[in-house]
């Protein structure tokens, strides 16, 4: 009996120490990002955005008096790396919240987050399958919104009737291609052929040659990062002269600078390059900020706001469940791109712009409002 009592006391003491450290000291959250590999340019923005937000939060006194600390992990576009990173964050660092990116890695970690009650905020992946998942919130619209806009624009206003598709062989690429097939057909167009490519590949000539032989009047590129620049350059090299189109994923320096991508028709999500945030980013990192930088700046700020709300409600205790409930009750958050409202499907809606890529910039032709 005495032994058991002693054991209980020790246990209680240990538990007490554990919860004491959890209630003071810095608040640790995770961020699983493409810091290397074919999407490393996105990673520079995402990490920078989160860092600037963290500095601002800590300069303003932290979250309920506690400093915020972000643990950055690299998934290099590989879902199994994301899973390992998530396990470390959940089991070793015991974070209540993590930022995540890319579709396949986010889908892979979601069951782990849901099981361990860790909130995940995705600011970059856009597969439709990311909606309606417990503990996963997307402060970005799912891709079918964007693809719907561009497919209709291409068919109705640009007179495109027959498309060929080149598709990154992963969750994001395949999901966007599936959306494109549906929406382009609904707008009166036809998809003639589809070829798949590896995201980290460097030679897509065989696929492009096959697509060229199918004719058509539009090449839709359902891929992202460096990959798109290689596709565009090699397509031109093979004498493919039909217009190319893509989604906002092509807003990375490699694509904007590439010769082959000149004239590409594309969507864009709202980003103001002259905002105070963009200026601050440029000053700190000496790189122009992009859309994805704001996304992770916002994601960090959303966490701070939700954590503060949760801690107020739960007497200073912070856990994933509390953060989730806070996001559900607050729902609308202020971001540099305007007010962001989480929809019932856990995703955001945004204005969508369509335009033409010229001299490294998108010349916007039309804006489709999220809330007309």
């Amino acid at each position, binding site marked *: 009996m005495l032994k058991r009592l002693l054991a209980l006391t020790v246990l209680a003491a240990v538990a007490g120490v554990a919860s004491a450290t959890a209630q003071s000291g810095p608040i640790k959250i995770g961020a699983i990002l493409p*810091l*290397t590999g074919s999407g490393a340019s996105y990673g520079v923005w995402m990490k920078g955005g989160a860092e600037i937000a963290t500095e601002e939060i800590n300069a303003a006194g932290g979250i309920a008096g506690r400093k915020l600390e972000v643990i950055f*992990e*690299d998934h*290099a576009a*590989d*879902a*199994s*790396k994301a*899973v*390992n990173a998530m*396990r470390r964050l959940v*089991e*070793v660092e015991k974070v209540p919240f993590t930022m995540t990116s890319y*579709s*396949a890695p986010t*889908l*892979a970690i*979601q*069951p*782990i987050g849901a099981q361990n009650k860790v909130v995940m905020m995705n600011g970059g992946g856009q597969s439709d399958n990311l909606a309606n998942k417990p503990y996963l919130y997307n402060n970005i619209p799912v891709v079918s919104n964007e693809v719907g806009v561009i497919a209709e624009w291409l068919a109705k206003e640009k007179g495109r009737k027959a498309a060929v598709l080149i598709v990154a*062989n*992963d*969750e994001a690429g*395949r999901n966007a291609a599936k959306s494109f097939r549906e929406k382009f057909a609904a707008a009166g167009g036809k998809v003639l052929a589809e070829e*798949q490519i*590896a*995201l980290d590949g460097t030679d897509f000539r065989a696929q492009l040659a096959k697509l060229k032989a199918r004719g058509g009047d539009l090449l839709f590129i359902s891929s992202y990062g460096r990959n798109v620049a290689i596709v565009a350059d090699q397509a031109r090299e093979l004498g493919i002269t039909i217009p190319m189109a893509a989604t906002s994923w092509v807003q990375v320096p490699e694509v904007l600078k590439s010769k082959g991508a000149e004239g590409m028709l594309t969507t864009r999500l709202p980003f103001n390059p002259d905002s105070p945030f963009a200026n601050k980013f440029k000053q700190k990192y000496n790189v122009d900020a992009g859309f994805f930088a704001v996304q992770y700046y916002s994601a960090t700020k959303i966490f701070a706001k939700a954590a503060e709300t949760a801690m107020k409600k739960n007497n200073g205790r912070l856990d994933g469940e509390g953060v989730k409930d806070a996001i559900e009750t607050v729902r609308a958050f202020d971001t540099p791109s305007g007010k962001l409202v989480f929809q019932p499907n856990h995703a955001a809606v945004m204005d969508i712009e369509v335009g033409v890529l010229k001299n490294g910039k998108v010349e916007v032709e039309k804006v489709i409002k999220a809330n007309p």
Partner: protein
Amino acid sequence: MTAYLAHYLVMVGIYSILALSLNLLVGYVGIFSLAHAAIYGVGAYASALVALHLGLGFWGGLVVAAVAGACAAALVAIPSLRVAGDYYIVASFGLQVVLLTVFMNWTDVTNGHAGLPGIPRPRVFGWVVDTPFEYVALALALAALTYAICHRLTHSAFGRVLQAIRDDEIAAAAMGKNVVLNKIVIATISSALGALAGSLYAHYITYINPSSFALHESIFIMSLVILGGSDRLAGPLVGAFILLAVPEALKFLAIPDTVAAPMRQVLYGALLIIFMFVRPEGILGRARPKALEPPPVTSHAIG
């Protein structure tokens, strides 16, 4: 800290199974395979798929994994082992590439690069293996079982035939042993056991995608065998214990993962070279008597 330790021990269990099974080929018949990671993947996919779609339990998954692994290996072993060892290196590399392409592109089944999430934790005799330390027990138990199977195999009459083949193939053939058939059988058994590790891995991480089963993984498993010592059963175990501790140790040095991953590989590669100079028989291995070296090979005219 304890979470790290548990994870390390589970991985030791999984890689011990891989190394022990590969050693049946490398150590006992002297055949090098570059496809063991792909076989590991076949096991992982097979048992994940039957768990996700058919609701088959952990033991059923293990059996399916073993059968699938054996079939995949037989596909290559039957044509290439009829020829010679060098062919098997190339053919097994081919198998590695083909299987990885299948994991990647048979998207209806494997979900391609996006992989299979949400694989259930195993239920063993009505008990769900969920906490890290419970999983340690399961992984080490299966590793012990594999060790027992390998021990039994290598100490049987069949095991002695294999060693006779390794030491002098021509003499073994002259004694009326069917060299090719014995090689094919052991390649198949080795793969069936390797596939078990895949099943264990899939249910542990609860997520699989092709990148866990790539060529560098095959090379890593081979390093475990060679550095541990391929002519002793316990050699690969020692290799797994020591080499898997390396990445865990590097984690405490706060090196970014982008540098740490290749650095780990550099270390493994350098160890392979150094061992070939100072201790080619591996940590536990016994120096091989000169008389047992394979005979010099026939030469080929260039031109």
